[in-house]
């Protein structure tokens, strides 16, 4: 009796793992097909531009406001600690490095996943549920080239720009708190920052991170939407999964990229 129950449980676990690997393989093939068939997204660039508008421009407000507040909080908290060591002039370094290297790409990516990724999944899932995707196939229009690829490239193009704006806005917020409010010397704030932040080592690596996050988030979003069961419940689950999986993917990828980019003090 106990043995059969155990066996059933093990079988369920095995089935879960198999279906996960199965889905991963399907998602990879989906990405390959998507990239191979994204000619339309660039030939009819209007389609992609409309998606940049939805994914990028409409996310601007949340990105800019969050960036401003994150920078201001960093500045306040950093001052608390730095002034104990009499190093409050290094506030610019602290704010700029933590934003450019980590917080900019990661927080912008998380916001992007919940603001734009979930919308993409819901949109594609609903198109599938209302059989618009099948209708396109009937008309010999490839839905991946016409619907999915522009959304994918729109997200991939928007993400680095959003992350850069987030970092720039955060540094501005940090400046607002540090210089006019706390009274750190403005020259020291900027010059120490400029001496410590390196273009290729810090800024370029941040941009690379944001591109990677952009690809990961939009890939997960379009795949979850395309793969969603065509029911109201299926679409809602897919939307939730997009936010959860892409947030986890961002944090995990961030660890891997940071380990690759910033280890070894002598480099």
């Amino acid at each position, binding site marked *: 009796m106990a043995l059969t129950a155990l066996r059933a449980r093990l079988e369920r676990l095995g089935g879960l793992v198999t279906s996960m690997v199965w889905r991963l393989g399907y998602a990879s093939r989906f990405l390959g097909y998507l990239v191979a068939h994204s000619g339309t997204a660039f030939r009819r660039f*209007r389609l992609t*531009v*409309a998606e*940049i*508008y939805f994914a*990028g*421009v409409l996310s*601007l407000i949340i990105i800019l406001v969050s960036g401003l507040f994150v920078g201001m909080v960093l500045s306040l908290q950093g001052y608390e600690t730095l002034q104990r060591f009499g190093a409050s002039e290094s506030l610019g370094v602290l704010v*700029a490095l933590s934003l*450019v290297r980590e917080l900019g790409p990661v927080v912008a990516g998380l916001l992007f996943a919940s603001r734009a990724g979930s919308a993409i999944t819901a949109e594609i899932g609903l198109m599938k549920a209302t059989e618009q995707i099948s209708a396109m196939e009937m008309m010999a229009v490839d839905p991946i080239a016409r619907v999915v690829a522009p959304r994918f490239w729109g997200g991939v193009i*928007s993400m*680095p*720009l*959003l992350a*850069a*704006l987030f*970092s*720039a*806005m955060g*540094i501005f917020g940090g400046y607002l708190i540090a210089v006019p409010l706390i009274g750190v010397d403005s020259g020291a704030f*900027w010059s120490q*920052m*400029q*001496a410590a*932040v*390196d*273009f290729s*080592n*810090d*800024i370029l690596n941040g*941009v690379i991170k944001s591109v990677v996050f952009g690809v990961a988030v939009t890939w997960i979003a379009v795949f979850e939407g395309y793969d969603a069961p065509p029911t109201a419940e299926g679409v809602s689950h897919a939307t939730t999964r997009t936010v959860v999986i892409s947030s986890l993917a961002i944090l995990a990828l961030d660890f891997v990229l940071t380990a690759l980019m910033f280890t070894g*003090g*002598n*480099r």
Partner: protein
Amino acid sequence: MNRSTIDLWVGLFVVAGLAGLLFLSLKVANLASFSTSNTYMVQANFLNIGGLKIRAPVKSAGVVVGRVTDIRFDTETYKAIVSINLESIYQFPRDTSAKILTSGILGEQYIGLEAGGDGVMLKQGDRIRLTQDAVVLENLISQFLFNKAAEGKGDEKK
């Protein structure tokens, strides 16, 4: 909303994003002020470089004149070989000396150059002969304690 308005907003968004990147690279990383094109490379050997890192500044009279580009260990002489890129507008005599110094008490280490009196200038690939190693705090403290102990003995004898 018709198409042309979307285009305008997307254009503005892309311009703003690129402006953000430009701000980061020019104002934050200060890319413009340090051109890497017109430099020449010299080397210096040190017995101990302490905490010197690649990209550390090279200063003369407190002005940044170059950067450390490479640090290597020579297995034949057991010394560290430090490569320095100096800006071509700054020429130094051949008998210039290089010291590893620390900015502040706990600050970053940098290389300080002191110009000599030779008429011949350093060229690409030259080696700086006069060098002074980094001060290692442990050695300094042990030397201090040793001196103190020696002083104490001297007092007893008197």
